[in-house]
């Protein structure tokens, strides 16, 4: 979207007002938005004031290990006595960070590839999209595993791996949107005006593809968070003792019989975040889909 969008004219405002009104009326979208906003608030607050959580997330207390949920420890403690509540709350930061940065990178790459492929069609389209298909043919977890294993297992490499894994999914959507926009007459009008390809791709095609891309992006954030958890679970993601939801499930796994709360609460956190982003994405799709509009 171009910067000019923020210099709102009166008409533009009414356009947004209409969007917001429809969004508000959509229950799914509002619930999703509520969850996502709360997650962000938690992540931001804990980033600036890490001491807000009741216990130090890395402080061990062997005497107090595997304590069930109580008033003192609302989610219990783990096998070395760390407070699970504090760790789950702080884990929000990492999950959101991974989800957002990797999807943003995937959006940039995927959108560019998809729109270029959709705009030019022919050989460029074929070669780009077959490469994307090749990447999609690997199960996401395997591809991410391979990439992380080849590089060093740390947070940034996880992000790079996730971005690469999700690029083809974004590219598919961008391409189909670009193809339908490409057939509109205003693209031909732009060519007839003598515009360069770059102008047409970024100023005429791209703004008209934003809707479906936003939807795809917000749904895929949920998947990257899951995948990050899986990678951490397998020991290739976030490294201990940093609190990541996936990692916590991993370490709690062997204590399932004695201390099920060690797995339950981080898993619940993942579930809530995934549902939140999915609802938001679904809701956005309902609101942005022109077919849903009442034709006047």
């Amino acid at each position, binding site marked *: 979207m171009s910067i000019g969008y923020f210099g709102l004219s009166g008409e533009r405002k009414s356009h947004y007002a209409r969007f917001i009104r429809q969004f508000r009326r959509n229950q799914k979208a509002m619930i999703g938005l509520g969850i996502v906003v709360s997650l962000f608030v938690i992540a931001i607050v804990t980033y600036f004031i890490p001491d807000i959580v009741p216990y130090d997330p890395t402080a061990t207390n062997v005497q107090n290990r595997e304590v069930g949920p109580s008033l003192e420890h609302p989610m219990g403690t783990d096998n070395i006595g760390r407070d699970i509540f504090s760790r789950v709350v702080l884990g929000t930061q990492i999950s959101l960070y991974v989800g957002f940065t990797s999807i943003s990178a995937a959006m940039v790459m995927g959108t560019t590839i998809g729109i270029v492929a959709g705009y030019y069609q022919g050989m460029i389209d074929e070669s780009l999209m077959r490469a994307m298909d090749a990447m999609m043919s690997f199960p996401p977890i395997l591809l991410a595993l391979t990439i992380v294993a080849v590089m060093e297992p740390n947070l940034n490499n996880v992000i790079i791996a996730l971005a690469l894994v999700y690029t083809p999914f974004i590219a598919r959507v961008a391409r189909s949107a670009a193809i339908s926009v490409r057939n509109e*007459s205003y693209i031909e009008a732009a060519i007839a005006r003598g515009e360069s390809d770059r102008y047409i791709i970024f100023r005429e095609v791209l703004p008209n593809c934003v809707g479906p891309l936003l939807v795809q992006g917000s749904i895929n954030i949920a998947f990257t968070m899951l995948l990050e958890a899986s990678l951490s679970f397998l020991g290739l993601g976030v490294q201990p003792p940093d609190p990541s939801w996936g990692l916590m499930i991993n370490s709690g796994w062997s204590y399932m019989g004695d201390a099920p709360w060690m797995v339950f609460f981080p898993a619940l956190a993942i579930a809530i975040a995934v549902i939140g982003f999915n609802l938001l994405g679904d809701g956005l799709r309902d609101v942005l889909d022109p077919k849903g509009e009442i034709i006047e």
Partner: protein
Amino acid sequence: MSTNESEPLLSVESLRTQFRTENGTVTAVDDVSFTLKSGEVMGIVGESGAGKSVTAKSIMRLIQSPGEIVSGSVMFGGRDLTELSDAEMREVRGNQITLIPQDPMTSLNPVLTVGEQIVETIECHQDVNRKEARKIAIEAMKEVEIPAPESRIDEYPHEFSGGMRQRILIAIGLACEPELIIADEPTTALDVTTQAKILELLNDLRKDHGVSILMITHNLGVVAQTCDRVGVMYAGNLIETGSVSAIFNRPRHPYTRALIDAIPEVGSDHDRLYALEGSMPDLKNLPDGCNFADRCPHAVEACQTGGDPPLESPEDAPEERLAACIRKTELDLSTPTIPESTKRQKKEPIEETLLEVSGLKKHFSSGNGLFGNLSVTRTDGGLSLERRYVKAVDGVDFTINRGETVGLVGESGCGKSTVARTVLQLLEPTAGEVYFDGHPLHSLDDNEIRSLRQEMQIVFQDPKSSLNPRKTVGQIIGRGMEKHDIATGQEKRKRIEELLERVGLQSTDLEKYPHQFSGGQQQRIAIASALAVEPKLIVCDEPVSALDVSVQAQILNLLDDIQAEFGLSYLFISHNISVVQHICDRVAVMYLGEIVEFGTVNQVFDPPYHPYTESLLSSVPHADPNRRSNRILLDGTVPSPLNPPNGCSFHTRCPKKIGEQCEKQVPGAEQVGSNKTHQIACHLSEAEMSEPVDHQEKGT
């Protein structure tokens, strides 16, 4: 169920249908009442948004949420359709009342054979087994004149042409021998020659079966040629009803007069069109008085208040003649309203060529991908591989002088739009030369063409699709100025405002987005943005085909005025012969990628004709019930451009074909008589081309 002769078959009483939108309730059909007798054909005309289709759908109870029939009754064969249960209604639909939809291309299921689709309807409503149903289906296909129905019944919809598909839809409608057919714009999506054939078919069916037809259309020509009675709709109301001749001879409502006057008529003088100002009022916010008062040239003060006038019979007219106008008796609207600046000034012909096209060809490879267009053919020497091409444009020559309008007419698929795009180098020509203002466009590189684009602009058919929905009107119009360094900053803004006013919009519209305008206004914006770069040539690709007649008249007048003011040249592409005749100086008639006749408007539209031109002209339905032309119905359909016929490309359908010569020799474009400007590509002699075709005795 039997209907008494004196009782009307269908009687709609105070029907009101509303749609709930988030901005309020829209009353799409407001208090509409009319009756239809058995065996009668009634037309409902009006512009888009007038409520024609909603009326038709309300009768069949096909209105879906958020729409609702609020009040009123629809009596059909003694029953009130609005009170039937859904199951009873299903029994009526497709059996007693059938609907012929507008678009034959999307109204048939592509994965079922046409036979299955006809049989399905028969089985649904009649107690017959599959075999008998199939027999009835074949009968129905015979009835609608589909050749070889026994074998074609097992083909899929894509194997039929548009006109044939419309016939199949009519066959589906007829299969259960309904008492009422509702035809919702049955010919709007079809070419004029196909339209002529479908209208003939409907006329015949009505004679043979005595079925009643409710014809919904925006085309007054169709109404004049097929209907007994007409109802005119405006803003959800029926504003005038009466017999066809009464309506056309002396309209009682000023809107009806305006609709008739807005049509460019084939054979009329080169007049300016009468264009009604403004547009239909917002259905959510109707005026206090008569809905039409704001646009009405005859409005008086009393029209502005007191609600919309009721539909009543004028004192000096028979009872069934109804009009909703308070001045219906005093006004005499029997003569056309003549706009103030009557005759268009005859332009001085400038003999300076701006665009010269010679031998232009554009072949598309058929199929996709690298090997898509390779096909194996069996020849004497065994199998051989051959590349196949769709010859969309196959050798076209014409010139456009400065300040002149040249029209390209022809049916869909004849290559008109491809010519336009190839001339503008939006598509790369396969062969041929294009000189624009002395520049050889065919041999320039991309950058040189880009800078020349300023001088040649294009206006598209669908105004909605030709404006980027994410940009404001100012950004759309201003972009071209920036791009070609014509103006920037304040200067640019001033010019945009001037242009907007020039095309009949407001300078404050600059900040608005395209979706806030109606179709006609969007087309004005498109024209303004083409004008913004001060071009010498504007290619108009069906610029008025998507617009209503009154708006069409406004746009055509605007194009005329702009041409006079800026000295532009137009290449005007249209399938609408009357529009072309109205606006063009010279006309080229295209058939299957070739120009068959080229000359000034008078030369082309008067004998001698090319046989194709002659049949095109005869197919146009005149918006005058007293004037019936003898339609020349062409056999078959346009051959595939993949494999055009040898010799003259028209010989497969030509009513005047001489013989072998037509099949073998390609006729060259030859001068007609001493007229240097008139060329016809035909083997016939001039005298033969001037004779009328022996009529197959159709029409009246």
